[in-house]
């Protein structure tokens, strides 16, 4: 009987040790739209030289505030809207001129979870984009990767005219 009791207690102890648990949420748990900037002539990555601010319809928040010399930026996307309208404002300090490029990103949204301990989030799939560029500041804009999720791949490529 003593042997059986020993076996039972040993089993319980081993199971208790095995029951120890740690929270293992994904470290990169931010879902953002990744936008890259490129030279329209060479196709190479390009650090824009004018100050960029990005705002969006439907929110007072500034999504990206006065950045300069960046080759890529990340922007939050709305959870529930079927399309986000983003305004990219490029400001030339030397001429005190501002150029606005309005980008409409159509998408589908789907909720995503990892574990009860981890934050839930919204993934997106880009379906189409179009843009207004009255000043011809931009050469073209294309979708590079439709999936907006934890993978953080580049989603949109903006080709800028760089000769002026």
């Amino acid at each position, binding site marked *: 009987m003593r042997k*059986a009791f020993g*076996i039972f207690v*040993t089993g319980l102890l081993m199971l208790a040790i095995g029951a120890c648990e740690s*929270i293992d949420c994904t470290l990169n748990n931010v879902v953002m739209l990744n936008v890259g900037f490129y030279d329209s002539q060479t196709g190479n990555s390009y650090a824009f030289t004018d100050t960029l601010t990005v705002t969006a319809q439907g929110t007072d928040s500034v999504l990206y505030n006065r950045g300069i010399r960046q080759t890529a930026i990340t922007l939050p996307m*709305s*959870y*529930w809207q079927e399309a986000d309208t983003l305004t990219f404002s490029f400001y030339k300090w030397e001429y005190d001129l501002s150029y606005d490029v309005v980008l409409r990103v159509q998408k589908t949204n789907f*909720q995503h979870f*990892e574990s*009860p301990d981890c934050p839930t989030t919204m993934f997106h799939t880009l379906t189409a984009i179009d843009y207004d560029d009255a000043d011809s500041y931009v050469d073209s804009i294309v979708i590079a990767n439709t999936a907006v999720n934890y993978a953080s791949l580049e989603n949109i490529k903006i080709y800028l005219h760089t000769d002026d």
Partner: protein
Amino acid sequence: MLHWRISRYICILTISLVALPLLAKDNKEVIPKAPLFCGVAVQADLAGPVMKAVGSKFDQIEVGARLNFRDHFFPLCELGIGESDREGRENNNTFHTRAPYFRIGMDYNLNKKHNGNRLMAGVRYGFSSFKYDFADPDFTDAVWGGSSGFDMQDLKGRMQWLEFSVGCETKLWSFIRLGWNLRFKARLHQSVSSYGAPYYTPGFGKNGSSTFGGTINLIFDVGRTSKKLNAKQHGLLER
């Protein structure tokens, strides 16, 4: 990493299965040969109810049955109901599932003596098809605003896995035995909702490519052949 761990586990099991009987060859003691069919046993897991009683994040109720050939080979099947009701530690997320699971496999008794004690090594194939719920009542868009909550019901999941186990058991009284085993579980295939994978899979445990688990079994030997084996162990029958 997973392949390395599985390979190491298989190597240890293989070496144990091959080397231990060879080492035992030096023992000059003549061990009575057990009958081909030594009976049937049914078993119940005691760890599951204990886990439920102490409020574990998941638990199971499990029973099983096995055959006994030569007191060494134990083909078996196990079935149970796994359950998990889980709340996030630092949020109000909830996860729920409750579903049956099945396992088939075989244990091998490494102890050559028929003295009632068994050192077991085994392998099992497990399967579960289940539904799970996930909810986040505080799900909001921090930038654009708005909230519709997050309440997913009856998401479908399915998993197949392999288990490699080691354990031991001893006779408590007459036909009643007690034993435990530890199991390394490796996922073979998983099919889950695109919204997210389950936190817990019934029979497997916390979801992942591999995990550890175990059971504490109360075992009942049934059938006449097991009585014959007991008699033979005590030299009451001819060899």
